[in-house]
Each structure stands twice: as C-alpha cells, then as structure tokens.
C-alpha cells in the first residue's frame, strides 16, 4: 500500500535560477592501475602488432582477453598463443551518444568481435569503421557473423594500448 508518498521534485530552472542552492565538488580520482602479467604481455603484443591469447591445456580453451589463470579449471593456464587480427562480429551497435550523454553527428559502431584463433565465443570489445555513417548504411554492411580485420596504427605510433588497433573493418 502506498500512502503519503514523499519527495520533492526539482526542475532544471530551480537550480539555474538559484531557487535551490548547490555545492560543487570536482574529485581528483586518478588511478595508476597495475596491468599485471597477463594484460602487461597483451599490451606489449599490441605494441608489436600482435593479438595474444592464453591457452589452457586442461579445457583446451584459447582465451582473449588473456588471463594467467583459467577461471573455469581454476589453475594457472599454460601458454601464449598469437592469434590472428581477423575475426567475426558477435554483435554491434550504431551509437549516437557520447559518455556525457551529448549527441554525435556521425555514429560510432562498437562491436564485440570474436577473434580468429581463439575459442568460439571469445570476443573483445572494439570499434568498427568503414561501414557507413547511418543506421541504414551500417545495417546494410554489417551483420552478426560479418568477417572483419584490424586496422593498426603505424608501428612507430603504437604505445601498448588497445587503441593501437584503430578499428576493425569488413574483410570483403
């Protein structure tokens, strides 16, 4: 039973006009994350233009993003495997919003890409490009299962980051 519902709703104007007072706080939230062994090596691989995965000999899975342990077998996994820089689109979206909810004129196309050489279903998040600039164009060019390939930054500009791959584009 809902009785005597409480709460006072404010409008944008209440704040803009100074009708309610506000305080502002700009946090200084910087972090220096330790990548660790697996991601450290993965980033080094990106700098060298390679996508690296880890293989577990017990379950036979080849995993990307790599980890030093197999979360299903719960053991240290066994070896580094150089994967291809091609793959298939698991899913994709045509995004018109930025992180701050502002709108983009030209959309981004984020996608989960299953990497060739890794076990089925092993994907990474990245962006697609050269696939059109509207929902209609993108939907005509990309489907679940579309084959794609990485487009790398020039070797001299790579810095050991996931952004060393500029984007993926359709193979055909």
């Amino acid at each position, binding site marked *: 039973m809902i009785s005597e519902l409480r709460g006072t709703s404010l409008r944008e104007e209440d704040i803009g006009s100074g009708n309610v007072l506000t*305080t502002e*706080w700009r946090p200084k939230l*910087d*972090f220096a994350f*330790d990548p*660790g*062994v697996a991601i450290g090596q993965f980033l080094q691989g990106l700098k060298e233009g390679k996508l690296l995965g880890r293989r577990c000999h017990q379950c036979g899975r080849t995993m990307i993003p790599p980890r030093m342990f197999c979360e*299903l077998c719960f053991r240290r996994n066994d070896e580094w495997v150089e994967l291809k820089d091609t793959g298939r689109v698991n899913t994709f979206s045509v995004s018109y919003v930025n992180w701050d909810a502002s709108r983009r004129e030209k959309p981004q196309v984020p996608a989960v890409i299953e990497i060739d050489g890794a076990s089925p279903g092993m994907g990474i998040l990245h962006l697609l490009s050269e696939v059109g600039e509207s929902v209609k164009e993108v939907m005509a060019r990309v489907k679940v299962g579309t084959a794609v390939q990485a487009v790398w930054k020039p070797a001299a500009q790579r810095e050991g980051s996931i952004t060393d791959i500029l984007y993926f584009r359709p193979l055909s």
Partner: protein
Amino acid sequence: MTEKVAVVGAGFTSLRAMSPDMSFREMVFDAAVRAYEDAGITPRDIDSVVALGEDFREGTCISDEYVPDQLGAVQKPVQTVSGDGLQGLGVAAMLLNTGACEIVVLEGHSKASNIRHPAHVEAMALDPGFVRPHGWHPVFVAGLEMRRFLHESGNTAAQAARVVAKNRRNALRNPIAAYPAKVSFEQVLESRPLAEPLRELDCAAPADGAFVFVIARESAFKRLRGQPVFLDGISWISDTCNLFTRGWGEASYTRQAAERAYAMAGVSSPSRDLNFAEVDDSFAYKELQHIEALGLAPKGQGGTMLEQGAFDAGGKLPVNVSGGSLGCGHLHDASSLRGLLEAVLQLRGHAGERQVANARRGLVCSWRSIPTATGAVAVLSRR
C-alpha cells in the same frame, strides 16, 4: 549461532607498499589457490562467495563485477559487502547458518598503491554539503578524535606513540609485514604533525595485499583438510559518521559490538578469557581507544598498561603481535582480514617465532577508518 562455524582455510599474499608486478586479479588468484589448498577444497565445493569492495578504492564503478573469475566462482552466488572484513565474516557466518550453504569463501584485497591521491578519495566520504567545502585534508577527523579521546581518557600522546614502537617492532617477526622497523616513541613524537596531536608516524601507511578465507559449517568438516578455527562470537555495529552528531571520545561501536560478541562466545572477563587480540590500529591512538572499549583495560588505563608491557608480545595479553596495521600496512577494509589471518595462525600454532604460548582464544577488532564509526568484534578459538 545455531551450528558451529569455523575458518578452515586461509590464503594470503605478502603485504607490500607497491605491487606493480601483479594485477589485483592475479594477487587474489594466488591467495585463493593457497586458501583452497589449505582447506582441501576445489572451487566446485564452494556454495557462495562474499567479497569486500568500495568503488572509489578500486577505481572501478560497480567494482563487484570483477570478483568471480579469480576465485573460481563463475556462475556462483557471489556478493560484495561494502564493509569491513569482519562484516564480511559475519555475512559468511549468516549464510552458513541459514542452512543454504556449507562452504563460503571470503575475499578482501587492497591495491592502495594504485590510488594516486588517497586524500581526495577519503575526502569524498565527508558530507558533501557541510564538510567538504572547507577543503581540509580528511585526516583532521582523526586529529579531532585523538584530542577528545586523550582528553576524556587521560591517556597521553606519548603513550599512543609507544603503540607505534610496539607494533612496528612486532612486525619484525612477521614475514608478510610491509613496514617492520625499530622506531622509538620519541621518533614518533618528533615526526611531522598532521593534525595535532596526530603525527605522521601515528598513521598506518597503506599497503597492497590479498586474503582469501574458506569458512565452513561443522557438517562440512569431514570433507575438509584444514584445521578449523572456530568463530565463537561476532558482532558489527555502526555509529553515525556525521561529524556534527557523533561522539568523539569513546569507540562506542566497539563497546557495543564487544558486548554482543562476548555474550555469544561466553566471554565473561575478556582480559582473562582471551590469549591475544588483533585490534585496529589505523592510527596509534585507535589501538588504545579500542583496547578500552573492548574492556581489555579499564577506562583511562590503556596507556599505562601498555607502558608496563601488558600488551607486548610475551605480555599478559599480546595486542597486535602480528605488527597490526602500523607494522604490516593498512589494507583498507581488508585490514581486519590481516587480523583474522593472525588469529588463525596463532590458534593453529602456526605463527612461527611470534607464536603466543598456549593460544586458545583470541579476538579481532576492526574499524572502517575515517570518517566512520563502524567496527566489528570477532572471538575465535581452537579446540
């Protein structure tokens, strides 16, 4: 508690000022492998997982999403408690006592070294409207509390400084400690003032590390290898962190939690019934404040008893024989898991050269650090 609950496995990493060679996932994996080996379980045996976490310390929003893999707990009932290690232990004990679980895993870790501006994170725990606009370093809260505690209890800053000397000396005998040292109480008193009477060496320095414990009901013991350490009593209490309405002198949360935990455990005289205590010492004065709230010293006598050596390793009731947070490093909410680990090692007789003779029963006391007034007390024993 309806059925006996015990810690049956403990895993941990060394505590270090920095750990650039490992991600937190890899650190937790190492601790988990040791804990499961100690208990004699595989991840298949785990019914539920309780992890500790606060987003702004992890640098990740909704940080609980990164819990399961490194514990072998993918697709298991996993939850995060944004609270202290002993609150996590309390949750684990409750899950076991519902009858729905037999084996629960408790995880806590610190990657404090990854936080570039720790004071800015701590400041975000202060009231955004009334306190933060002053722009003060949040350590002022500890300065205010220390002053009032010394005033009400009659303990002195010099006595608090001796807590530092004791704990860092104790840490010399703890191989996992990050900050073992010979420090004199004069050195503490001569260190830089931060928020008078609080000085730089009064504060536990942050460290990185991970702990994983396996907690089980008695009915599961027969399929386990680990020597059980029984949880006889546990309670956690929160007082307000509102700086305008809180008390400053006494650790009331500790007093209330201790009353409940002692009642559960059948402890009638704590200083007689307990063989050791791991007591929060995030700041040196907190150890004295907590000792008095725990009833391990009469009010106002904590400092004098400390000077007389009552709480030394080898004293009447060793307090922080592990080195405490001052000697081992402060691990945020995982700090009390370092205390829990010490209790397990002492009660199993595995504490090496710092082993307390005839350790049969001990306690762990925690505090969630500034600006909170939340803490817990756990009483543990061996058979």
